[in-house]
């Protein structure tokens, strides 16, 4: 986003860019090969899950290691609803609402605890979730899992299933990202930020840290549920393996790699979650864990603020390179150049975390 910040400052250019991106997204599935669509669909699924995680961890600073539980819950609710012939809108609302209610109940208790204790409570969710999913076999299909197909393209659309799924995922993902963006740019976003930085300061400003944490946690769970709905749209199957604890850690890694406390970073995180296994499979399928670990370390080492900070780092490097040869005669170039990226950086922080007029 920040690469085009000079253009973005221009209002009509921004509108034009939005329109172009929207048209590109709508046209893309018709032009791309099936596998590209299927990959984009999965990116959408996990981008929404990472977005939820980002709200509670990146923005509000509360450790949440249980996000995959809400994804799995949303997926199971969707599978149950679809197999019982509910209307698909009802299914979607139920997937979000049930995940949100469970998240709210957990948060009401967990948010009273400070720091690492919240992490412990959230670890418990997927650990309890897996055996629970195996036990409640009348709802979940037991350890064999449950299939539910609702995302095949209807005949009247004339589309392939992967294109149809793309549009379902695009709709939900775009809505989730736009809503989350307005949320973190508004007063709740400011409240999240204050609670993350200092709870005492937040309380003195009239922002209840407890309520803010519960809110962030609940929103994360709702987004987790929405991601679960999308998971079923994309995979059409879920099993207890879906909500295993390891995936929660992978989601966390994806969020950090994408960029904690950044909306765009969530999308990058989702892309990372999907692309890296595909990439490592192409390198050598026997060493996927090894190469995934190596990629993780390299990214964190070079870009500790996540991939979203890449343009900023490139610009900083570029500035250093252009600044060095002319360092003998700074007044000519440096004053003209220096403040701009600095301002852009500041501007980025503002847009990402707080409001913009």
């Amino acid at each position, binding site marked *: 986003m920040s690469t085009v910040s000079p253009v973005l400052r221009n209002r009509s250019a921004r509108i034009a860019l939005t329109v172009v991106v929207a048209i590109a997204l709508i046209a893309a599935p018709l032009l791309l090969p*099936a596998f590209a669509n299927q*990959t984009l669909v999965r990116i959408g699924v996990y981008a929404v899950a990472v977005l939820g995680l980002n709200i509670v961890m990146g923005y509000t600073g509360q450790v949440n290691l249980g996000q995959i539980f809400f994804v799995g819950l949303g997926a199971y609710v969707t599978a149950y609803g679809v197999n019982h012939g509910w209307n698909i809108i009802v299914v979607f609302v139920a997937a979000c609402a049930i995940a949100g209610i469970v998240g709210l109940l957990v948060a009401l208790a967990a948010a009273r605890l400070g720091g690492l204790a919240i992490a412990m409570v959230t670890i418990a969710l997927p650990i309890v979730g897996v055996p629970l999913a195996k036990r409640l076999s009348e709802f979940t299909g037991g*350890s064999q899992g449950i299939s539910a197909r609702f995302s095949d393209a209807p005949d009247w659309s004339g589309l392939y299933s992967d294109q149809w799924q793309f549009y379902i995922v695009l709709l939900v993902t775009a809505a989730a990202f736009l809503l989350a963006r307005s949320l973190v740019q508004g007063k709740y976003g400011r409240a999240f930020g204050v609670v993350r930085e200092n709870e005492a300061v937040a309380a003195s400003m009239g922002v209840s840290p407890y309520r803010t944490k519960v809110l962030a946690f609940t929103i994360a769970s709702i987004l987790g549920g929405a991601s679960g709905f999308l*998971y079923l749209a994309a995979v059409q199957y879920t099993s207890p393996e*879906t909500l295993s604890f390891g*995936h929660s850690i992978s989601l966390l890694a994806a969020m950090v790699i994408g960029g904690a406390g950044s909306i765009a970073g969530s999308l990058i995180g989702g892309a990372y979650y999907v692309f890296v296994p595909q990439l490592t*499979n192409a390198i050598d399928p026997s060493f996927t864990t090894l190469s995934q670990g190596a990629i993780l370390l390299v990214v964190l080492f070079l870009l500790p603020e996540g991939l979203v900070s890449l343009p900023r780092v490139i610009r900083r490097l570029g500035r250093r390179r252009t600044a060095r040869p002319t360092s003998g005669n700074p007044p000519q170039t440096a004053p003209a150049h220096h403040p701009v990226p600095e301002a852009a950086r500041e501007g980025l922080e503002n847009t990402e975390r707080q409001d913009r007029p």
Partner: protein
Amino acid sequence: MKIRTKPGGVLGIVAMASIVALSLSGCTRGGSGQGGGSGASPGITDTSITLGITTPLSGATAGPGTCTVAGVSAYFGAVNAAGGVKFGDGKTRTVTIKSYDDAYDPQKSLANFQQMVSDNVFAATAGLGTPTNRAYRDAAISEKFPQVLVMTGDPLFSDQKQSPWQLGFVPIYQNEGAAFGKLLAASKDQHKVALLSQNDDYGKGYVSGFKEAIKDASNISVVGEQTYEATDTSVDAQLTQLASSGADVFFNAMSVTPLTIAALQKAQQIGWKPSWFLPSNTSSPTAILEPGGAAAYPGIYSVSFAKAPQSPAFAKDPDVVKFLSELKQYGNYPDMPAFPHCMWSYMVGATLEQAFKNMTSPTRDSFMTALRNIKGLQAPLMLSGTSIDTTVDGQPAVSSVIVQKYNGKGYATAENFG
């Protein structure tokens, strides 16, 4: 700074977008992905055929998962070195294996399946895992993509009506439980049996197969029945309970390796020494029985349909010698296989070769027809008394198993109980 004017910026973006859109439209899908003008299915040419394996190559199930790739690669590596397979349509083709790691994650196995479709793979085979195979079963059916000889005991894959493009390879859980039940029922003595099973379809499958087999046997009585969760870290309480029942036979339908070792040790500690039955995937002599101190029991029984390379009885068997050298040379697996999946997937290779020989045209349809018509094939490494039979609806390719008894080093066929 202000060189870029409004219209220029907007125009530039629109221009860029249209360039991107135009270049992307070059890769619009052609038809439904059917390649070749001669009506051949994707993934098969006049000289080669490509098979895909999605299986766990990392994570907790990586050991058996790696074996599934190694066995098939070993088999076809040797076949390719000898020139290839002569197909039923008269052409000789070499077999290429593409492997994909799914880490036992259903979502990843579906992604791998989609990758296979885009990589022009002819058929998926040998992949390990029930959830991972189930995750792309529907997609494979709608793509008319064979997903055959997969390593799962889930009966769904062998139901031809529900799974027209699938076929399981290994015996379903019920087959194994029933084999042991039959052996026990044929015994002349009275036996009291204690059952411990994993509380899911795995454990239930074993127990229902076993109970079905002893239904009419008056000499067998079930005196204790307990379950545990696959996530449990200890079954000490269940063992103590079952020990007090005084059973002399212990049927332990357990799929978790460390738990099986712990159970073998615990029962000794509390002085309960029955004969054991263990499922085929948790009965490895080196990985489970030795650390568990199994020599202390009067008998450890398991079922198998593959010759065990570790067993002294098969050390000089020509099949085993050939298998081990090919596994080393072509399968990238230099050690003695620690999991039966290496042998199983080697047999998968032999079964596929048989189907290739019988398929009359280079299509997936013809392949499925040929695959479903194999009967009485004694694949290499198979124990005598077992064979490949793909013709029975509802049964996997291998449904016959032989009960074996542990002899301190490996397994030997058990003719009767005791």
